[in-house]
């Protein structure tokens, strides 16, 4: 058995090496189809297409920043090659004349100014209606481009506004600071005015005092002299008067002495009266008392010569006079107050001018793609088509290698000869399956390598892990080839039956387009196809950039289906070929 497997295995490689058609179908055909599909539909995915991009004629009547932005963005758009033309006629000629020119872009004059003025502007697209799919793809990009340009313009306006606001705020801050400084200056000035006023009052007081002192001194001298003169005159007058009245006073003094003697005589009389009244003495009222006569000394004084040695009044010096002057103050009128600054109101007004309170430009509502897995959202179409068509041609390769190979060997008679040679059918089949499994693996590896080098497909973070789904689908496809060999039975019916089944499995399994394009019943059916699980594994690793284990379960599902295929295929082959 092992010998049969080994020899059949090696013989398969010999046969394949001589089979140019088989090799073509294994390698060149899938590359051609992958390239065709990838380059045809790559623009829709946004792949880098090199020379195979859409040509988009562009007429720039604006010559402004918007036109430059559109042109710059389109130049960097991998799916588009811009052909700048002078007028619409040339653009029409390009669209009519080239297959890959679905539309022309006209940027009308004044677009930049219109946008800058805050009004809506439009870019006009002249489309070729029969190229609707390409138009949609380009329009999608231009729509996104317009959104980005508008957003960028708004961002710039917002930035300018923010800068203006900041500048305004700085100016307001400076004004506020200047106001504060002005207010402080006014207060200082007021304080200085008050001090100056006080000093002026003091100086004025001193000056007045000095002038008053001098005046007082002069007045004092004059007054002194006048007083002394008056005193002398008074003294003389008094002396004259006193001399006149001294005789009168002597008479009075004599009268008083006589009076005093009379009083004493009265007292004695009264005492005699009372003694004479006896018991009625009590009824006699006391006599009125006589005022006591001035003392003799005092009376002597009256008669004493008047000494008019009146000292002239002594007038204090000016200083003393000034100091003796009662306190008085000179109050100058207060300086006029500066007009009050309207600071609180002004500050409130300034606050009201703050940018935060200013109306803002509404932002643009756009979208941003983020893959749920963290991988790049920009998918290379070949990431889908290299494994997808690789699987398709793997299945077709199995049809040729196993289904046709087995039927051919039966028809040639080599199968019978192998069996007569002692090679068991099981060993022969296993050798074939093993060889084709390995060929399938190599085919997938080569296609992925070519996809990597030629089309830039992503191998994900775990390139080695791609071998697992490749091995799984190679195994399942080999078993599938065995089933087709049992179902088709004849050489001529292998390709019609097998190719239909293989292509249906590929299409339904998501090899040609994403599985979500399909209706739910078809997706439910797809769960029973190895292609579905294999594409899931490849997509997980290559597009979603998921960890290595993400390919494990899909690959196990593929292998499980492959085992089912193998059991069915071996059972059928044992009945048909044994």
């Amino acid at each position, binding site marked *: 058995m092992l010998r049969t497997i080994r020899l059949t295995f090696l013989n398969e490689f010999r046969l394949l090496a001589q089979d140019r058609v088989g090799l073509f179908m294994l390698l060149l055909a899938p590359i051609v189809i992958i390239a065709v599909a990838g380059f045809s539909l790559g623009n829709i995915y946004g792949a880098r297409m090199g020379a195979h991009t859409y040509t988009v004629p562009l007429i720039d009547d604006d010559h402004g920043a918007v036109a430059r932005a559109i042109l710059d963005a389109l130049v960097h758009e991998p799916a588009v090659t811009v052909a700048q033309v002078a007028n619409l006629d040339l653009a029409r000629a390009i669209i009519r004349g080239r297959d890959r020119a679905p539309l022309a872009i006209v940027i009308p004059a004044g677009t930049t100014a219109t946008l800058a003025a805050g009004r809506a502007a439009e870019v006009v697209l002249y489309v070729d209606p029969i190229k609707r799919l390409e138009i949609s793809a380009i329009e999608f990009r231009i729509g996104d481009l317009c959104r980005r340009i508008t957003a960028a313009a708004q961002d710039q306006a917002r930035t300018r506004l923010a800068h203006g606001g900041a500048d305004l705020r700085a100016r307001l801050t400076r004004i506020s600071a200047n106001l504060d400084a002005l207010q402080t200056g006014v207060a200082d000035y007021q304080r200085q005015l008050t001090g100056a006023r006080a000093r002026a009052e003091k100086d004025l007081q001193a000056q007045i005092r000095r002038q008053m002192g001098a005046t007082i001194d002069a007045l004092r001298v004059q007054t002194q002299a006048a007083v002394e003169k008056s005193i002398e005159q008074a003294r003389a007058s008094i002396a004259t008067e006193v001399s006149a009245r001294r005789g009168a006073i002597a008479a009075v003094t004599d009268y008083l002495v006589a009076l005093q003697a009379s009083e004493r005589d009265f007292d004695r009389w009264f005492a005699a009266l009372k003694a004479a009244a006896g018991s009625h003495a009590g009824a006699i009222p006391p006599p009125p008392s006589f005022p006591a006569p001035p003392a003799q000394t005092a009376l002597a004084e009256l008669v004493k010569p008047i000494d008019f040695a009146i000292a002239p009044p002594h007038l204090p010096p000016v200083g003393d006079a000034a100091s003796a002057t009662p306190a008085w103050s000179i109050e100058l009128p207060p300086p006029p107050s500066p007009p009050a600054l309207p600071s609180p109101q002004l500050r409130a007004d300034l606050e009201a001018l703050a940018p935060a309170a200013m109306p803002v430009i509404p932002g643009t509502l756009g979208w941003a793609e983020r893959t749920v897995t963290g991988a790049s959202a920009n998918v290379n179409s070949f990431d889908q088509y290299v494994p997808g068509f690789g699987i398709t041609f793997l299945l077709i390769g199995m049809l040729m290698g196993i289904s046709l190979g087995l039927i051919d060997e039966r028809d040639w*008679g080599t199968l019978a000869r192998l069996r007569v040679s002692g090679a068991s059918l099981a060993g022969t089949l296993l050798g074939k399956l093993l060889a084709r499994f390995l060929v399938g693996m190599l085919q997938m590896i080569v296609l992925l390598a070519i996809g990597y080098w030629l089309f830039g497909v992503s191998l994900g973070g775990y390139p080695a892990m791609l071998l697992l789904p490749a091995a799984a689908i190679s195994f399942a496809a080999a078993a599938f080839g065995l089933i087709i060999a049992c179902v088709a039975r004849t050489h001529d019916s292998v390709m019609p039956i097998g190719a239909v089944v293989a292509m249906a499995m590929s299409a339904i399994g998501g090899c040609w387009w994403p599985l979500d394009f399909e209706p739910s019943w078809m997706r439910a059916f797809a769960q029973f196809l190895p292609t579905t699980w294999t594409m899931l594994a490849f997509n997980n690793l290559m597009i979603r950039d998921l960890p290595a284990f993400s390919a494990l379960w899909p690959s196990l599902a593929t292998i499980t289906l492959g085992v089912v295929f193998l059991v069915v295929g071996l059972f059928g082959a044992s009945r048909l070929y044994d």
Partner: protein
Amino acid sequence: MLAQFATVQSGASPRPSRSGRLVSVPNGATLLEAIALRKSYGSRLVLDGISLAVNAGEVVGLLGPNGAGKTTTLSLLATLIEPDSGTVRIAGAIPSLRHHALRRRLGFVPQAIALYPSLSGFQNLELFARLHGISKRQARSECMRALEEVGLTERADDRVATLSGGMQRRLNLACGLVHRPDLLLLDEPTVGVDPQSREQILETVRRAAQGGAAVVYSTHYMEEVERICSRALLIDRGKVVAAGTVAELIALGGRQPLMELTFQGAPPPAWCDGLAGITQIAVPGANGNGKIALQLESFALVSPVLERARAAGAQVLEFNVHSPNLSDAFIALTGRALRDLIPDSY
């Protein structure tokens, strides 16, 4: 007849070794026995009690028209299919589909050119040699020997698809011989080949038998049977209608030699009267051709007939003697022609 055939087989059966490989087989030993083989495909009975025995060093022919059951018989003998009933013994053992060691002693040359057309002759030979258990080193020398036997040494490395039909047939034969089989089963190995290749094939088969192989040679060319087969079975509609040596089979047909003569003008009347053992079965036609046919009791009458014609003054332009053959025997036994088409080479 079957009973008679059964008595033909002789010699002791070789015994398989414990490992299943055959021990050496002496010439004359019965290597293949088939007893009362029956096979049907659906309701169609293809073989109806075929029995045969083949000894080592012997070539036994299976002769019959297309559809007689020759290929089915060989497929049963090669153990590719199993009979509905009956037994096949190879070297005394009943082979089965899984008796690989025994099957490796078989050399099978199918009617179709069972070769990989994209491989070279050498590669085809090497593959089958290796499958028969020959080591890689030995396989090389055996392949070269087989190529030499069929005269294809110079084309050893050419792809089969580039070889002529005759060369492919020879290579087809070589693939059945490359491992020096004890039992060689050939299913119409000369169909559609040129005379040169036919000779080469027949010579190769003969050498194989001389080398000790038991050969079963299926064909509808009775001439090939007559040339290389020591015994033959005439098969028709799945049955053996006759078996024995070629001479025995021809004799079973009961036919006599036929002599055709073409005269210049009409032959003289009663020119052969008096010759015993001659029966005129065709007379000159009304259109004046001078061709007549005589049935002879033996070849010995050819010369007397010619002498009598010359004596009668007749001018013989041409004469042919047709000896009775297996085809005649087959027609006699079945009422059907052996071949639908006779190739130009015969």
